[in-house]
């Protein structure tokens, strides 16, 4: 058990900064990002899992962040206290619109879990469709369909139209 803890500590030291940056980009909150990353590693230790690679941890943090923002209390706090500087340079936009915290939360509400993950990977982590496919273990075509759904919802929210109406 002690060895497993030590390995987890090593993983944390090695990958923690990258995961913190990733969570900060998405949550725009240093405190919440630390909380999420810590909780991922604590759970890994509890499960006795160590030696995870960065892509696995990247996905684990994404999932945890999405769960985090679905909580109403967390969401309210994030919107009130967001720190835009933590986002860093924005390289991928959706039809020339930056998907910030507020818009991301609204889009996530209308998406299934897998598509919400795609939203984060594409617009916050700048992953290519091939990278997303590899991370989610699905085909590129599936990723394309999920991305189309993200874009569709995003455009509806940006344009104020309801996609369910003709």
């Amino acid at each position: 058990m002690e060895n497993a803890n030590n390995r987890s500590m090593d993983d944390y030291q090695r990958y923690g900064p990258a995961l913190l940056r990733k969570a900060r980009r998405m949550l725009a909150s240093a405190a919440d990002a630390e909380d999420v990353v810590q909780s991922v590693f604590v759970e890994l230790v509890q499960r006795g899992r160590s030696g995870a690679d960065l892509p696995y941890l990247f996905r684990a943090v994404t999932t945890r962040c999405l769960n985090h923002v679905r909580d109403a209390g967390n969401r309210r706090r994030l919107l009130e206290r967001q720190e835009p500087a933590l986002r860093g340079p924005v390289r991928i936009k959706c039809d020339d619109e930056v998907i910030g915290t507020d818009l991301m939360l609204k889009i996530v509400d209308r998406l299934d879990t897998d598509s919400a993950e795609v939203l984060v990977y594409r617009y916050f982590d700048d992953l290519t469709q091939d990278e997303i496919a590899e991370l989610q273990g699905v085909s590129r075509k599936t990723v394309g369909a999920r991305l189309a759904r993200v874009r569709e919802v995003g455009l509806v929210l940006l344009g104020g139209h309801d996609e369910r109406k003709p």
Partner: protein
Amino acid sequence: MTSHGCTGEPISWLRLERYRLGELSAGERDVIAAHIEACTVCAACLYESERSLALPPLSLGGQDSRLSHMRRLLAGPTPAGAFLRLAFAGVALLLLVRPIGKPTKDELPSHRTGLGSKGGNVALDLVRERNGMVEHDATTFAPDDRWKVLLTCPTERMMFWDLVVVDGGQASFPLSPQAAVACGNRVPLPGAFRLFGAGPVTVCLVLASEPVDRNGLGPLDVTSLSDRGACTQLRSAEPSD
């Protein structure tokens, strides 16, 4: 969807992090290195990923209850929660910002925003860490304070920069710019600095399309330096501050 400022498909943050960690194959590394060489935006992202980041200790002993307790405190409006949030921010030493345009009532006359010579809006935010407390728009400095700079400038631009501290007509340069920065909203500049002295100082961020020539800054007054970026003034802390 579009990518902005990149010469092609941006190198994802995941690949940049793995590149930094040396986890990619030689072929992948070559591809990324070639892209970084040609793309200043992705180079700035790589630079961002290479900056040191304070990692809070991982609490593995009694972790479940301890973490849950911390999370409750962090989520709630209690004084302990507020203290914890401030402590976390202090440990991270980074980048809590306040909206531009909400000056504190005792703010000194300053020139926090200026019009860059390229015609776009430029704003300088200084973040002070004092005894673990992070404060924005502080107006006083003490020798033990640690300062970070947040830059706001028109997006899709890469700007060279330098930080100039003018004290009694003498200029000093507390940071060491290594590369241009990709503009954005409150972009943290690499490095932190301290301020010393008994009198007021002027802190200016100078921006340019080429590396800033420290010997060619011209007049060291607020107006001249503000024309090339943005300035703010700070005074030495009194014992009561």
